[in-house]
């Protein structure tokens, strides 16, 4: 049986009189990949931060399992060039990290060759791998990823999502991830939460694809996304037909 790792109930975040999140419920269970999708400014990052405890909701509650170990990859991280730090040393900053843990995490991300590189010299994709390695270092029970494919080129995106699935399988951890690559994510996620200040719809990818609210949010972009998507080599055979029907219903 999978256990609940974190539960958010009625989370509302108000900043300067504007509601960024409005009465949001969310649950992540052991071994499950939950993806938050939604338009820019829809509160995806804010929700992730509330779940992490980085910000306190104005009202509502977030309950984490006792002593929950979390790994976090933030949305924006620009290493400071004024601080000399190798990738390996960056990993070793995690509390309790031993040298062999760093080696293992680097190996898992296929990033051994980056170990002695200065953090500030890494490319977007390389940095993302190092950040993932740091998040995995402490064997997290819940992995929180905010747009993990930021700054990664098109070919690399699919690889990175596959890597995340492999990680989940190997570590049996829960994953809560923010993405706006709606269609790529569909193949790798267990549950989707559409967020536009409030939860407009949520459920399994196959259910969500036919949801009116989902189509309202993403239907009009489907055609454009399909164009991008065609460049990927992938194995999710039912995507194309669903997207075609999404397009139809949207028009």
């Amino acid at each position, binding site marked *: 049986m999978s256990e609940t790792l974190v539960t958010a109930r009625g989370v509302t975040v108000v900043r300067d009189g504007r509601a960024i999140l409005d009465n949001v419920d969310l649950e992540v269970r052991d071994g499950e990949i939950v993806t938050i999708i939604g338009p820019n400014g829809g509160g995806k990052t804010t929700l992730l931060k509330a779940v992490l405890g980085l910000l306190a909701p104005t009202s509502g509650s977030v309950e984490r399992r006792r002593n929950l170990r979390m790994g976090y990859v933030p949305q924006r991280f620009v290493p400071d060039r*004024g601080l000399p730090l190798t990738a390996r040393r*960056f990993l070793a900053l995690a509390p309790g990290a031993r040298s062999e843990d760093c080696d293992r995490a680097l190996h898992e991300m296929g990033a051994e060759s980056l170990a002695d590189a200065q953090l500030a010299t890494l490319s977007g994709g390389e940095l993302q791998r190092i950040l993932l390695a740091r998040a995995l270092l402490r064997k997290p029970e819940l992995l929180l990823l905010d747009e993990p494919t930021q700054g990664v080129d098109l070919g690399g995106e699919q690889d990175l999502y596959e890597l995340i699935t492999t990680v989940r399988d190997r570590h049996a951890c829960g994953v809560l991830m923010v993405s706006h690559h709606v269609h790529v994510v569909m193949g790798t996620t267990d549950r989707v939460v559409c967020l536009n200040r409030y939860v407009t719809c949520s459920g399994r990818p196959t259910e969500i694809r036919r949801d009116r609210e989902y189509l309202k949010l993403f239907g009009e972009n489907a055609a454009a996304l399909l164009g991008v998507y065609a460049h990927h080599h992938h194995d999710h055979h039912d995507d194309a037909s669903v997207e075609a029907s999404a397009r139809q219903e949207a028009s």
Partner: protein
Amino acid sequence: MILFEDFVLRAFAAGLAVATVGGPIGCFVVWRRMAYFGDTMAHAALLGVALGLLASAPIPAAIALVGAVLAVALTFLRRRGRTRTDTLLGIFAHAALATGLVALSFIEGVRIDLMAYLFGDILAVSQGDLARIATGALLVLAVMARIWRPLLSVTVNAEIATAEGVPPLRYELAFMILIAVVVAVAIQIVGILLVTAMLVLPAAAAREFARTPEGMAAGAVVVGALAVAGGIAGSVQFDTPVGPSVVLVAFAVFLLAVAAASLKR
């Protein structure tokens, strides 16, 4: 030879103690972009001087106390989020300086040498001063060694650190109080106006060749020590003010480091 007179040797020793703490603290000041915060602490030091004289308390302790109180106040005002940090620092640096100057004008009968506080008076370091400076330096180094790794983690990325269970606020606050102590200790050497230079210059020079955070801190200690030794020797030799002489040597080393690093590339 005058270089080996007692008071000059004491000056060297005090200067080396300050360079030794200034290295690691200065690196974090640079990494955390707190140069202006260091300046604010220095400005507030004059208020510490005034309060110390009024309460007939030891002046360095009064300076450190005023700095620590200011650090806590700034932290909480910044959390409110309405006023940007540099604005807050601009307000408090000058409010504290003005309060200090007004308070000093009330103290009658005590003639204080304002110039000594503004520019430092390292050659007047007494046996007791030296003991206090060394104790302060050791204390700061001990705390710094203890909080080094979590503070570094919080500095590199506060959100990741929080997610890993390392609370940023605790370490940020501890570091700001350490800066207050270092400023209190270092003011006697280089003075209020130049104390930030002793934190920022050695760290910036060391950055040119460092590959690790610790390497940069060690390099900053070496640069600081060179600056102190060269500055004091120069000051004794050419009868120039000590603080500015020390800072000038540090600046020269910084320029050399930048030039050498550029040539290497």
